């Protein structure tokens, strides 16, 4: 009978933490086993020891991406925790639109697209209600995820009743989706506002350019301490002066970064990058 021993799990766990920046909890062992099933099968391994050796001897980016992808769960809702989208509409969009300033937003772990599309819907709603439609041409939304498959699904803009029923207000469903049998297809007026790309948060952010708002919610739970510190530094550097960061409602920057000032709008906690030179 083959199984993963405590020692093997430790080895693999340390390697993943070091190389992929992902922390595995000791009690998540069975989950890891089931999730690595496909990777092991793909490479023809039936023991974790062999699999670990392969991982160690093949420190290439594609393989690491696959490991990270296997461990992280794709989960996303429309307007997940509504408050950031209210903050966008009531506080952030006006700052840019009223001064006719361009606004560049990054949804940095977009999974199957619900978050960036919720941002796009919020922007269109804001512009319509506040007579700012021309400003929409100055808004760009970039969305990335480690999983190429997730990106592929996001780009299709196709969702079923089950997915639509989770968080999407009925009037938005009417307004922004067309029904194709049992599938709801997002209209082009929203779809075309988002550019998708596969991206590993371990890579350098330099080639992405600068952003005014970054969303990175509910993914930091997977990351190791060291990686979180690095990640938030890179996020601060990727923001234009005064740019905003949204993290998950239950997440914190305390202990990971001093680069941000916490702000609050209604009940939404979000962050603004501190001005350089004051530190």
């Amino acid at each position, binding site marked *: *009978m*083959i*199984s*993963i021993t405590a020692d093997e799990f430790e080895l693999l766990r340390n390697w993943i933490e070091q190389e992929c920046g992902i922390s595995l909890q000791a009690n998540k*062992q*069975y*989950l890891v*086993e*089931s*999730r690595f*099933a*496909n990777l*092991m*099968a*793909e490479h023809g391994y*039936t023991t974790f020891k062999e699999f670990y050796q392969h991982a160690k001897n093949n420190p290439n980016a594609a393989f690491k991406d696959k490991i990270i992808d296997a461990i992280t*769960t*794709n*989960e*996303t809702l429309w307007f997940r925790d509504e408050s950031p989208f209210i903050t966008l509409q009531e506080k952030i969009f006006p700052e840019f639109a009223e001064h006719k300033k361009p606004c560049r937003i990054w949804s940095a772990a977009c*999974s*199957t697209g619900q978050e960036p599309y919720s941002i796009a819907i919020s922007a269109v709603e804001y512009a319509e209600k506040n007579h700012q439609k021309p400003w929409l041409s100055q808004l760009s939304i970039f969305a990335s995820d480690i*999983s190429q*498959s*997730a990106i*592929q*699904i996001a780009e*299709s803009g*196709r*969702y*079923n*009743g*089950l*997915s639509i029923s989770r968080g999407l207000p009925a009037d938005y469903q009417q307004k922004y989706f067309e029904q194709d*049998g*049992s*599938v709801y297809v997002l209209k082009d007026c929203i779809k075309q506002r988002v550019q998708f790309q596969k991206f590993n948060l371990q890579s350098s952010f330099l080639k992405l350019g600068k952003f005014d708002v970054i969303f990175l919610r509910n993914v930091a739970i997977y990351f190791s301490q060291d990686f979180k510190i690095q990640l938030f530094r890179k996020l601060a550097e990727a923001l234009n002066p005064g740019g905003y960061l949204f993290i998950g409602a239950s997440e914190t920057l305390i202990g990971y970064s001093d680069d941000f000032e916490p702000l609050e709008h209604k009940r939404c906690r979000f962050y603004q990058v501190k001005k350089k030179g004051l530190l």
Partner: protein
Amino acid sequence: MATKKILSVDDSIIIRKIFKGIAETLGLGFLEAGDGQQALNVLADHHQEIALIILDWNMPVKNGYDTLQEITTDPRYKHIPVMMATTETERTNVIKAIQAGAKHYVTKPFTQEDVLVRITECLKA
């Protein structure tokens, strides 16, 4: 070319409905079976249209593991990827299934997005 189909094998109607919704989202056709024996019957008639088999473990008549073994040793079917989707998380059983040729192992409960992504991966390989 005819639309490729997903074959969902699960004794739960609700689970099959969830996979049907997922197949439609991906623009794929859908076939279903309530146990392993029914699945083999469906395969005999439709194996050329099936792009992916999603198998539960704990089912009446013929369980998922026995079915998996029959699929992966049959020259007509063994090229079709099989994804286990089951509450069976016992370590020894997960490994047994990988050894028998399962390409993916998803444990219930699952998020719909996660299954969408895993299925897309299976279809690419």
